[in-house]
């Protein structure tokens, strides 16, 4: 069968063609919203018009089967209009109030997980992992799955002091917002990469490889037309591996994840914050990484128990102080927690004030 005529540089279709009519009409004219329950919110326009959004969880990795099923549901209750959120949840956009209940019923019947709106744990931003990326030091989807199972009630019913944004990245390239999440998991290596010297000269740009190293651990090895790594300086980031295929860094024995906490991106109350290291390492333990869920549980529970209303995880920690964070969570403080990278000195405690 002949292929249709290809076009180039046309860009995506215009968004207007995908907006429900009530949105087109009230575009930019919304007055307020109300959260009806963790799965449903309504936006009310200055004109009085309303649109209801019903949110369901998604594993993000979707088969066409599931997409077709969602389409069918959207057609039945939403005039075919559906959207995805910036955290990969699905939102059914309901223009007609009478469809709201039947839609929710069908979703529940079909075992869709409804929720995530308000002060909840919403979906976990994540990345490819062993599913599609060469760089992964762990799997992202699996960890997301077990964490969301563990905290499902915080998606569907139980509320928190504020939203808790989680992320999982399968390597330190961090193709998510790990570096600014309330609680996040990032996969790391812990062994110096090995180099297949014979291949370097054919497959690898030596200057780029040297330049890729954040700590300057790589230098030329002219005799082999290759490079060498100063093991004392290497902190296993894998950037050399990214730019130079003959360098190998995976080591199942020593790969695993670190947990970082206290980041945020919004400007509310306090400025956007980076996540900071809470747990330097947990071994990969597929398929359900029980040590990871337990660790996150410990941190989350401490937050829930102690945070004030509206306080994000990072705001809570900054209020009580990091020394107290380690105390209340019982997490050990190690040399790995003390920064020794570029802005290390800015993290040292240049004050005589702290808690015991």
């Amino acid at each position, binding site marked *: 069968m002949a292929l249709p005529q290809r076009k180039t540089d046309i860009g995506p279709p215009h968004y207007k063609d995908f907006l429900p009519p009530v949105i087109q009409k009230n575009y930019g004219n919304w007055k307020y919203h109300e959260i009806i329950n963790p799965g449903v919110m309504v936006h009310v326009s200055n004109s009085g018009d309303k649109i209801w959004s019903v949110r369901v969880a998604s594993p993000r990795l979707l088969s066409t089967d599931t997409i077709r099923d969602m389409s069918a549901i959207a057609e039945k209750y939403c005039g075919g209009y559906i959207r995805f959120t910036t955290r990969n949840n699905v939102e059914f956009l309901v223009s007609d109030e009478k469809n709201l209940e039947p839609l929710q019923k069908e979703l529940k019947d079909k075992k869709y997980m409804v929720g995530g709106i308000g002060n909840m744990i919403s979906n976990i931003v994540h990345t490819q992992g062993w599913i599609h990326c060469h760089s992964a030091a762990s799997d992202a989807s699996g960890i997301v799955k077990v964490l969301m199972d563990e905290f499902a009630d915080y998606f569907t019913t139980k509320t928190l002091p504020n939203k808790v944004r989680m992320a999982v990245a399968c390597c330190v390239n961090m193709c998510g917002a790990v570096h600014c999440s309330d609680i996040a998991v990032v996969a790391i290596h812990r062994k110096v990469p090995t180099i297949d010297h014979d291949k370097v000269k*054919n*497959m690898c740009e*030596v*200057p780029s490889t040297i330049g890729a190293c954040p700590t300057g651990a790589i230098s030329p090895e002219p005799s082999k037309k290759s490079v060498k790594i100063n093991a004392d300086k290497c902190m296993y980031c894998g950037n050399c591996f990214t730019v*130079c295929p003959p360098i190998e860094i995976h080591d199942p024995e020593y790969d695993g994840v670190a947990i970082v906490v206290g980041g945020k991106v919004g400007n509310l109350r306090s400025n956007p914050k980076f996540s900071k290291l809470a747990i330097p390492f947990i071994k990969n333990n597929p398929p359900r990484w029980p040590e990871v869920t337990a660790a996150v549980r410990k941190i989350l529970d401490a937050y829930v128990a102690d945070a004030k209303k509206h306080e994000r995880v990072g705001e809570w920690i900054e209020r009580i102080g990091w020394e107290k964070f380690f105390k209340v969570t019982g997490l050990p403080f190690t040399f790995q927690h003390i920064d020794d990278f570029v802005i290390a000195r800015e993290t040292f405690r240049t004050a005589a004030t702290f808690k015991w």
Partner: protein
Amino acid sequence: MPTVDFQGKQIEVDEDGYLVNLDDWTKDLGEQMAKGDGLDLTEAHWEVINFLRDYYAKYQIAPMIKILVKEIAKVMGPEKGNTKYLYELFPDGPAKQACRYAGLPKPTGCV
């Protein structure tokens, strides 16, 4: 490893057709690779390929596109100093085709 037959010899290439041993490269091999893609290499193509080879020999890295574009503008005239022109010459893109024909390592990372 896949191979290509070149003048009766089996030359090793990777999945994307880049040479596994850069020393295997000859001008003719470049021509043959291009033919495989349905391309006849003109002088204009060779201008690019030679620049890539010279640059690589000197710096051990492929030039950034912007450097390549500037070089072309210098040699072929400013109206050709843009990526459009490069894609006219190499419809699959300079990374995929020109670097390959030039016998450079496969560009990495930038995806």
